[in-house]
């Protein structure tokens, strides 16, 4: 037990929470935007995976990490666009469309990887680039706080900024208002002349954009190469984070950190003598527990109100 706290109560651990939260937070923000427009984007996982590969490939061939990021974003938006095209234009069932995207990405990434590198497992033969990390001047010299907050990957900072942007966008801008209107009462939106399909397109494409940044982070920051199925369910965890966060920007961000914490814990515990297989289940168990506790608290609250004597 002593060892356990020795692992947790370190600046390194706190730093790693931020590090592992990044992809979950990006994807969860993506889930949030599309959900508010009334579309559950279950293709997040596939979008992230595609972007992770795109980032590696483009950066390797152009020699620029930033162009690689652009490629990753483009790949993610394209996948989301495909999903939008089939579900909004041709009325494919949303769940089927999402499954197709995920299956396509899972197989497609390996196929492309093999075609280009001859390797079905990793992109280690490609000299892909990694996006830089940033030391924040002044803050980096503060004891304890400095090593936790400073020196992160550029996308980690971007994910925090993204959370603020999404919050503002949904709450304060005309687009946000229209997205929420479409999600809540599509007929009301239609009746005042909002182009519902267009709004849903925008929401899904934005959703794809944010998820793609999460994917790019996986292969150009978290690791410096692409490995098969490297997103490992983060897209799904993001969906759980979004619904546990009750479809609000603040809630989604907080729960993303909660899941990030669980993930970081699982990474940290691998230093201890606990079977690795068991430890790697921690984030997933945390997801399930989180949802259980959440629904218990919701129904408790409801019951309490029901029984409140008057």
């Amino acid at each position, binding site marked *: 037990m002593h060892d356990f706290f020795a692992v947790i109560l370190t600046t390194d651990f706190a730093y790693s929470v931020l590090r592992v939260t990044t992809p979950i937070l990006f994807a969860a923000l993506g889930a949030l935007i599309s959900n508010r427009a009334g579309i559950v984007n279950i293709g997040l996982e596939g979008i992230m995976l595609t972007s992770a590969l795109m980032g590696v490939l483009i950066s390797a061939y152009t020699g620029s990490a930033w162009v690689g990021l652009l490629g990753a974003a483009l790949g993610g938006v394209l996948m989301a666009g495909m999903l939008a095209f089939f579900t909004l234009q041709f009325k494919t069932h949303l769940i089927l469309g999402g499954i197709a995207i995920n299956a396509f990405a899972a197989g497609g990434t390996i196929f492309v990887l093999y075609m280009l590198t001859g390797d079905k497992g990793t992109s280690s033969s490609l000299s892909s680039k990694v996006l830089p990390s940033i030391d924040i001047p002044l803050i980096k010299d503060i004891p304890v706080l400095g090593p936790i907050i400073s020196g992160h990957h550029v996308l980690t900072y971007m994910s925090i900024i993204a959370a603020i942007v999404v919050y*503002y966008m949904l709450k304060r801008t005309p687009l946000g208002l229209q997205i929420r*209107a479409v999600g809540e009462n599509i*007929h009301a939106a239609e009746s*005042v002349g909002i182009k519902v399909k267009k709004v849903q397109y925008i929401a899904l494409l934005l959703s794809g954009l944010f998820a793609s940044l999460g994917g790019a982070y996986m292969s150009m920051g978290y690791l410096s190469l692409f490995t098969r199925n490297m997103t490992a369910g983060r897209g799904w965890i993001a969906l759980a984070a979004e619904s546990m966060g009750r479809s609000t920007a603040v809630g989604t961000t907080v729960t993303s950190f909660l899941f990030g914490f669980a993930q970081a814990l699982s990474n940290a515990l691998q230093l201890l003598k606990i079977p690795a297989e068991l430890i790697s289940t921690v984030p997933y168990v945390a997801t399930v527990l989180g949802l259980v506790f959440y629904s218990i608290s919701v129904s408790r609250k409801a019951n309490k*109100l029901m029984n409140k004597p008057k």
Partner: protein
Amino acid sequence: MAEALLDMRNITKVYPNGVVANQDVNFSLAEGEIHAVAGENGAGKSTLMKMMFGMEEPSRGDIYLRGSKIRLNSPQDAIRMGIGMVHQHFMLVPSFTVAENMVLGMEPRKGIAINYSEAVRLTKEYATKYNLHVDPTEKVENLSVGMKQKVEILKALVRGANILILDEPTAVLTPQETDELFDQLKLLKEKGHTIVFISHKLKEVKAICDRITIMRSGRTEGVFDMQQVSEQEITRLMVGRDVVLKYEKEANSIGKPVLRVKDFTVCSKEGKRVLNHIQLSISEGEIVGVAGVEGNGQSQLVDAVVGKLKGESGSVEVGNVPIGGMDIESVRGLGVSYIPEDRMRQGTAKEASILDNIISTRFKGKEWSKLGFFKRSKMLELTEEYIKKFQIKTSGPNQEIGMLSGGNMQKVVVAREGSTEPKFLIAEQPTRGVDVGAAQLIHHNLLELRSKGCAILLISADLNEILELSDKLLVMYEGEFVACFDHPSEISEQELGLYMLGINRQEQGDIRRGMHV
């Protein structure tokens, strides 16, 4: 007559499934009038209005605005040309504030953000101008139905609507709210707006409209100045026969109590008592009506007496059997039938045939199957008998029930629920949105059940119906019975309204004495 503001000429609308909703319809709107469009359900009023608002395109025929031909491809086109619509089902976003709903789709901006204070100002400006007072910062979900309707009207006005289409605006209002709406409509008219008023309540049409266009089965039956036409004549044109709104109720001997609700209390999620120590008893051969503004506990009362809702205290008994905790099948086994309010979702399985819907409550009975197979021909016979008895307009027993008009659909529900010789029937809004002919048929059926000794709980927002049919009338307000009348047909709607709105209430003792509990 002034030159027509809006002219719809020889409009024909054929839906892709082959239904001819409008046939050579002519509709002409003069500037500054309130023009009623009246007709039974399925007469084509809604279709005509949808075309006027750009939601549907006519298959044939033209629309002229101030003499020039226009094409309306979407509601947006209509809004741009100054045509606004207040839908029967409100088109509002519940979690938004009034101001947000007002500006949705045309948000005033400040930089990249919405200029919320401008939205509030705009709402206030229009609210004052048209005397439609609403709180701009209140969330729509917290508003009463009447207030929501005001928001809808303002929404159309703020978008520059000059012609305002109101689709059955009074269906959800109390008599007092209706009067208020009429005052507001008159004010709108004074300010130069033109109003299309869709309704099948003749009294209201008579009270407020200048002219009336009557529709029947997809055609226009005539246009009249309101002063020059009587209610009887309108009715005759609408239904093709004179509808008697009075029923000959034979005196009935009232038997022993069937339903007994004792001291029943239920709280909502928010902790509010939606049913507060309810006492109710209905006897054989008795129709007890429950009137009240929607949302005062009527739907919970229904859930309680069908055994769906468990109370915090009290009990519900049908024929001396407590039904709390019983499943629906066993409750039905006691002779309980239920005509639910929502025929689309609860009353029928929309994609199943008429036959399947009819048989759905009794298919488990031994007489309907042999060696595990249904006796299909016997079922067909039964369905055909009902189709004939209830004059259900259909292509046959195997037609999908969702294809029927609302009135015919409801007839199927009534046929199913009323034909199992029920001891206790709950009729929840049995004729809502149903045309006069079908309503009459349903009313007769309820009276027939009454004379056979069935105990009936009638819950209705249609005051005419509830005053005519009930032997005893209870008024519900905030989860309690606040009045009990022994001779419902002698009460005026205005008097009833005072109880419905909670302005008057009788002594609890009087109510209980009236209920024999």
